[in-house]
């Protein structure tokens, strides 16, 4: 019985390793967009993702706290602009997340 429990834990283990910061639909969408571009501002990301200002900024704050997104505030002319960029850690974390998801989903076969 104890052996069976260990085998089951080994099987589920990869799921536990998945980065929960990225594994949230809105944050995954933000990370995906920032992964394919060099940098973008808040307005561009808001238009592309369709998220509200509040939603987007709260998810960005979480990603910033995790060290995944660099946020730079500057002025373009007289208007404020929030420039967003994936940090090196963010890029690596996203690539690792992709690999892990591929492994996990690849293992989910119907036999």
């Amino acid at each position, binding site marked *: 019985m104890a052996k069976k429990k260990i085998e089951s834990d080994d099987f589920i283990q990869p799921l536990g390793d998945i980065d929960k910061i990225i594994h949230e639909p809105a944050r995954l969408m933000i990370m995906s967009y920032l992964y394919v571009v060099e940098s973008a*501002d808040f307005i561009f990301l808001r238009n592309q993702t369709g998220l509200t200002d509040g939603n987007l*900024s709260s998810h960005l704050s979480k990603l910033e706290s995790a060290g995944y997104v660099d946020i730079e505030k500057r002025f373009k002319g007289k208007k404020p602009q929030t420039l967003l960029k994936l940090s090196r850690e963010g890029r690596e974390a996203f690539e690792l997340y992709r690999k892990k998801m591929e492994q996990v989903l690849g293992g989910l076969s119907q036999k």
Partner: protein
Amino acid sequence: MSEGIDLKALEKKAYRSVFNDGLWDLFIGLIILTMGLSALFGILFNLPELWDIIIPSLVGNIIAFLVFYLGKKFITIPRIGFVKFGPKRKSKQLKLKIFLFVVFIVNIVLFILPFTGITDYIQIEPLFLILILGIGIFTIPFCVVAYFLDFTRLYYYAFFAGIGFFLTNLLSPILGAPLDTILTFGLIGGVIVVIGLYYFTRFLKKYPLQKEEVFNGKKENRIG
């Protein structure tokens, strides 16, 4: 999620959203339209020979450039936001700039060549020369630009602009100069401008001028 996230498609979607404003269409349409209308303005303003082509063409091209540049700066970017794409796109854009510079030089040489008298010694079938001009001035450069910009509509414009000279030649015995040029390039350029205006108005409706960004619940203060 029933389907995986295709990162290439996502990048393409983000990149192509930049062309939804119709400004490239307006820019290209205005340049072609200028070719047609320059003949008309040359007559209307009674400009001396050579200047009747140079001045209207120059004015038309400056207007096209201003529409594009000011439109991007004051209309498109405040609406869709600012984005910098990755190294692949940057490398493509650099190649495009080099190519456009070469095209610019070649066009100047082609423009000057008839005035030097060298072309009098070149024996080419007129219809063949027209096809070379159409393909060389419009079709090839437009297709290369379409490839580098990943801008599909430009392939169609390349085709229609390319046959412009050919159509002018066909209409010439019926309408005579300069009506043949005015009608052909005026029509092709006009249609492209209308397409550009359609995309532009659609863009304005889809992306109304946004309120300023509200990051972390705080509206950032403007300077001044």
